[in-house]
């Protein structure tokens, strides 16, 4: 089963490497990984999608938490959470088909972000299955390039915990 983990980590050089190295050496499967600064200076928040049974996921969580720079790992699978992914898609849209493509863009509440003679760049946000379906529907027109951020997740309701780190220098 696919699990979504949210990790709170210190924003220091090499932290991502430590985490990814752990996955490689223990043969855990990462499906996607998204990382960026959090609301607190010195802390990053990471969303990982990991494939595995409950026992494996328990190990993933504990092994990650064993890393000194990892502050906390939460498995948000099955919890009420907002889960999103962003994709940029370059799709062929020569004048005869352009209207049809833009119609799909509107239906999916996506956005055209760049226009060329024969193609459009489209930005879409949503849960993965929505993004997948959008791409599937664009395929007949000719999907030239896709880039996806991977899943990001946030649990609904009030913030549960405050994290603090001492930022040196």
């Amino acid at each position, binding site marked *: 089963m696919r699990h979504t983990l949210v990790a709170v980590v210190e924003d220091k050089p090499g932290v991502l490497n430590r985490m990814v190295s752990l996955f490689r050496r223990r043969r855990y499967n990462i499906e996607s990984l998204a990382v960026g600064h959090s609301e607190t200076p010195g802390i990053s928040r990471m969303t990982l999608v990991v494939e595995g049974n409950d026992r494996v996921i328990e190990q993933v969580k504990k*092994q990650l938490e064993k890393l000194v720079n990892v502050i906390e790992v939460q498995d948000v699978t099955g919890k009420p959470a907002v889960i999103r992914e962003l994709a940029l898609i370059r799709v062929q849209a020569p004048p005869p088909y352009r209207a049809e493509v833009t119609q799909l863009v509107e239906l999916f509440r996506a956005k055209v972000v760049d226009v060329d003679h024969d193609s459009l760049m489209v930005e879409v946000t949503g849960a993965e299955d929505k993004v997948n379906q959008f791409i599937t529907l664009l395929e007949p027109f000719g999907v030239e390039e896709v880039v996806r951020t991977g899943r990001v997740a946030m649990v609904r309701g009030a913030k549960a915990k405050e994290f603090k780190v001492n930022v040196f220098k």
Partner: protein
Amino acid sequence: MRLTGAEILWESLLKEGVEVVFGISGGAVLHIFDALPRYPVHFVLTRHEQAAAHAADGYARATGKVGVCLATSGPGATNLVTGIATAYMDSVPVVAITGQVPTPVIGTDAFQETDITGSTLPVTKHNYLVTEVVDLARTLREAFHLARTGRPGPVLIDIAKDVQAAEAEFLYPKEVELPGYTARHPVPKEALKRAAELVNTARRPLILAGHGVLISGAHRELQALAERAGIPVATTLLGISAIPESHPLSLGMAGMHGTPQANRAIQACDLLLAVGMRFDDRVTGSPRTFAPSAQVVHVDIDPAEIGKNVRADVAIVGDAREVLAAFLPLVEPTEHREWLEEIEAWRQEARWEEPLMEGNRLLPQYVIHEIWRATGGEALVVSDVGQNQMWEAQYFVHDRPGSLITSGGLGTMGFALPAAIGAQVGRPKDLVWVVAGDGGFQMTIQELATVAQEELPIKIAILNNGYLGMVRQWQELFFTRNYCATPVTSPDFALVAEAYGIAGFTVKRRDEVAPAIAKALETPGPALIDFHVEPEENVYPMVAPGGALSEMIHHPTPAERRAR
């Protein structure tokens, strides 16, 4: 106080109570060595960096303090890796310090540059690359804290050469701030209560004690618990001496070459209280067949070990000593007479005495037995890896806690001699014996020079059978005696020892064993004995790899041996 990076390093080591550093010099640590004579630190120059790491490891295991090793960049640093990995697998507090090429050339493949933080990432508890002198003191403070607290382990600090020369104000931080690190876990009261219920109602309880018991100094609490509730105790290899091995409740070592009573007790028990151990495959055999009727209570300081290899019915994360101390009053005094009687019968199964009684051949088991007898069991034994290690574990009766140092998890051949150097430096008054095979000993034989230079009175027993014996044993049993790449030739070890200025003896007959050991013990300094033992003697009992603990192959009887 403004100091150079090199001075900050030594000042910090002094703050951490470091008295000894093991290592080798080199281009990227020249500033550090230039400052060394101004500090009261004893530097032990090994002949290879791997030995420096093992010595720091042996020192740490023998003293309970953090062992420190120091090497230059590039090959100096990579040579440490085997030693660091050894310490990591066995949870030994070591701080490894390496020099790195100057900051401006890091990443350019400069002379003797290697990415040592990248290389040691999976074999350190944590590591650091220091590129700013202002970070140095805090990094050292954190490194020592990480190495010695929680589940101990090695921490590496890579210090760029220019950082060693740069100046900064020296302020050693009092506190460490590691938001993602938990050194201490509160004793979980609820889990303890549930564990106590299980122990109090069990009919066939068993304790399986590991290295964690010795690391946390929980041997008294463990013995008290065993005696209070009449629970027999088996140990892992690294748990040996967690309970005196001559104690009536001691079952000895469990696992691949464990005693029948330990292995059968594991397979028959209805409650397994595993303390400070991690269910290594050498202990469990096939995990699917392991302890089939047991409820498992697992006590370990590392949460990630719980449920990793064997499912735990009750998980208790914490320091073994704190946990056992809190657990003791919850356990009702009992005896498990029937259970203990059943176990007694299993003790007879192994035919331990036969290798000792046999009069003709020089058997390695007998050598170990004689070392144990001659030293009254008072020696601190540092064993190497392979058959010698298993015979030592079986035939030396370890009654003193912490009287065995060996590479358990990584199984590093060549470990014994350099680790013994560290152990002897750390415990100068103790009698230190090395037990090694002819194969492993040749992997770090150059450290005889360090023994000589430091005038360490280490006694060395080589069980010389002309083979990489454990691998040969597997080839005999599982690869149709195809002895490929296992026969090894050796120099005359006694002559080699003499060449280093160390007393050397050779023993070829059984009746020479005791006199040679006596002579080695009378020798005031170091001494080496080369025992030419029976070449194809095997370690028994043996559980085949991946087999169930109940399926043990035993030492053949003399009739069986003749029939082969």
